[in-house]
């Protein structure tokens, strides 16, 4: 059975192809259109998935959309009705969008999908609509390595649900609890993202990165004023303080009064206040997630937990849930945001709608193939594309390539690493990554300011050989998708001097805190990716070669893009990004490009090309 999954029309459009219960291809539309979080119909991603499967739409049994538009419309109407006449301005703007476009999504999709089938017929009959949180839950459970699990999904909002709990057993997935709109932990986090001056729906991970610089001094105020949090983790948000339900902003004036002023304006200097606010909302989110998971563990007595939804990308909270020990094992869908809904909808169609048996992982880590489900390029194709782009490169055999790349890393270069199939999900996992030497104390600052052109407070993640993880981090399980945060082990930390401990806020950043300072955050934590031979042998071999040379089985891994740009998708994208920032070395397949050897006329002013995220 072949199922095409689609998520679209909100943010992070994507497509995924499931063949007999196995993911064959999945990709986000933004990687093709070069428009970050592209919400449009994912035509390019669908074409790619069908090409990868060697089929066209006539060969597909079901086309599954990741949510139910009419239920969303119902939520919209009932919300405006309940709040009328407040919200008229928002209503006046939202309604035409629905009348013109969103109510006709099904018709629009049939029209857009028809050219992708030989016969041009039967599309409407194949269309299925899963619920938003059902899609998330399916994406979290069906590819997980567990036969039985509690499945927790948390995000901003889908149709009505903002948080849901399901029980997955074999090929079944049954929803047992939901928290409904407008009470949403995702939207609470987004409200603080907005209030601290970052962009909603993309700046949440900046808030998470900023949190360790602050003190959670507002946490009690959030818990006592903005919300009512129960012992079992269920919560209620006092809408007096928020404006997202019927307004055009996230927070209300009453919110400003509680926290002593208006929201920070975007791109203005960050102060200790924003850091404290970030620390506070992070602490509250962790408290909510811990209470929910403790209660779920107690109620259902199941030792495995699966998670998805945008909030499940909060790897700091995920790490705390793991260390809390109420669940023995945790698996988080790598494309936990809405893009992953495409895959989840496909799984839901396969296992829940068609009742086809789930495919066992057969000893593999899980069913996601390391999340390497996107396009790949052959060596001949790479060389042809690079030549056409005007790149000057040398081609190496496999062993020579690793040696040459390790040379560059050891020399302190930022190395663009473009290999194999592209990752599905927001994280670069060693297929479209920029790598560096984590031992270099200047690396974090250089990567942030010279390569990524982004705020200097943001930490980088380590990729570590799976077999060495516990020598460097307080983690004894795998974390292949960079979705768990763990502390650097005590023995590798560097104690702070008296003067250093007195530093506050971003001044803390410049103090090396371990023997891998580039990936050690100010609270000694790190967003760990364990690298496995089975899922990414070349990346594993590179880090092994780096270890053989330096003794260190860790490299810095950040996504291959500049601020505001989608992660590179093609060798040409990689070359453009390389020529647009101060990256010194680029490795694409078996080709190595040295910046000093490139034609200077091909340098591009790249920094301002993308809208800031």
């Amino acid at each position: 059975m072949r199922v095409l999954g689609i998520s679209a029309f909100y943010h992070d459009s994507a497509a995924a192809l499931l063949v007999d219960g196995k993911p064959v291809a999945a990709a986000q539309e933004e990687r093709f259109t070069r428009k970050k979080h592209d919400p449009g119909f994912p035509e390019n991603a669908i074409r790619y998935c069908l090409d990868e499967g060697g089929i066209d739409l006539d060969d597909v049994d079901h086309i599954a959309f990741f949510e139910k538009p009419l239920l969303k419309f119902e939520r919209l109407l009932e919300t405006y009705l309940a709040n009328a006449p407040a919200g008229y301005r928002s209503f006046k703007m939202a309604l035409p969008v629905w009348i013109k476009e969103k109510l006709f999504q099904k018709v629009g999709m049939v029209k857009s999908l028809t050219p992708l089938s030989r016969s041009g017929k039967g599309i409407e009959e194949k269309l299925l609509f899963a619920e938003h949180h059902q899609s998330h839950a399916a994406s979290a459970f069906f590819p997980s390595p567990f036969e039985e699990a509690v499945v927790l999904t948390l995000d901003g909002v889908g149709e009505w649900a903002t948080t849901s709990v399901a029980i997955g057993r074999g090929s079944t997935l049954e929803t047992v609890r939901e928290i409904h709109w407008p009470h949403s932990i995702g939207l609470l986090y987004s409200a603080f993202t907005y209030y601290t001056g970052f962009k909603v729906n993309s700046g949440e991970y900046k808030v998470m990165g900023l949190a360790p610089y602050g003190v959670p001094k507002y946490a009690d105020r959030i818990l006592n004023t903005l919300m009512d949090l129960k012992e079992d983790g269920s919560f209620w948000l006092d809408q007096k303080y928020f404006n997202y339900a019927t307004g055009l902003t996230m927070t209300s004036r009453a919110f400003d009064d509680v926290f002593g002023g208006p929201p920070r304006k975007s791109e203005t200097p960050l102060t200790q206040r924003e850091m404290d606010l970030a620390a506070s909302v992070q602490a509250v989110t962790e408290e909510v997630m811990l209470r929910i998971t403790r209660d779920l563990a107690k109620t259902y007595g199941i030792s495995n937990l699966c998670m998805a939804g945008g909030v499940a990308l909060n790897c700091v909270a995920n790490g705390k849930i793991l260390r809390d020990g109420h669940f023995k094992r945790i698996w988080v869908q790598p494309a936990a945001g809405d893009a992953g809904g495409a895959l989840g909808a496909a799984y839901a169609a396969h296992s829940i709608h068609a009742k086809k048996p789930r495919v066992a992982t057969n000893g593999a880590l899980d069913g996601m193939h390391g999340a390497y489900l996107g396009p790949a390029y052959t060596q001949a194709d790479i060389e042809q594309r690079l030549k056409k782009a005007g790149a000057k490169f040398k081609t190496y055999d496999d062993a020579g390539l690793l040696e040459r790349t390790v040379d560059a890393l050891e020399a302190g270069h930022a190395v663009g690493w473009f290999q194999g199939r592209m990752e599905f999900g927001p994280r670069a996992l060693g297929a479209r990554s920029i790598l560096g030497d984590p031992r270099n104390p200047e690396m974090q600052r250089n990567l942030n300011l010279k390569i990524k052109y982004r705020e200097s407070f943001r930490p980088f993640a380590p990729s570590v050989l799976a077999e060495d993880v516990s020598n460097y981090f307080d983690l004894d399980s795998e974390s292949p998708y960079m979705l768990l945060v763990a502390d650097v082990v005590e023995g590798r930390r560097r104690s702070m001097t008296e003067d250093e401990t007195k530093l506050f806020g971003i001044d803390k950043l410049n103090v090396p805190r371990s023997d891998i300072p580039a990936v050690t955050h100010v609270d000694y934590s790190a967003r760990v990716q364990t690298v496995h031979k089975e899922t990414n042998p070349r990346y594993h071999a590179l880090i092994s070669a780096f270890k053989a040379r330096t003794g260190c089985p860790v490299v810095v891994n950040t996504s291959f893009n500049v601020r505001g740009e989608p992660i590179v998708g093609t060798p040409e994208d990689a070359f453009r990004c390389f020529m647009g920032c101060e990256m010194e070395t680029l490795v694409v397949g078996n080709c190595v490009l040295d910046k000093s050897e490139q034609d200077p006329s091909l340098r591009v002013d790249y920094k301002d090309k993308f809208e800031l995220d």
Partner: protein
Amino acid sequence: MLSLFKELFAYMGARKKWWLFPIILVLLVVGGLLVLAQGSAIAPFIYTVF
């Protein structure tokens, strides 16, 4: 348009929300007028919850 009405009826039946029918009808008319009067714009929303 016909298929939309079919979908809406099926949805109201499934969700037992017939009380929404007059509201939806009025909204479709008012919304249609709004569409004619102006283009759609979601840009002013900091976060579109739909």
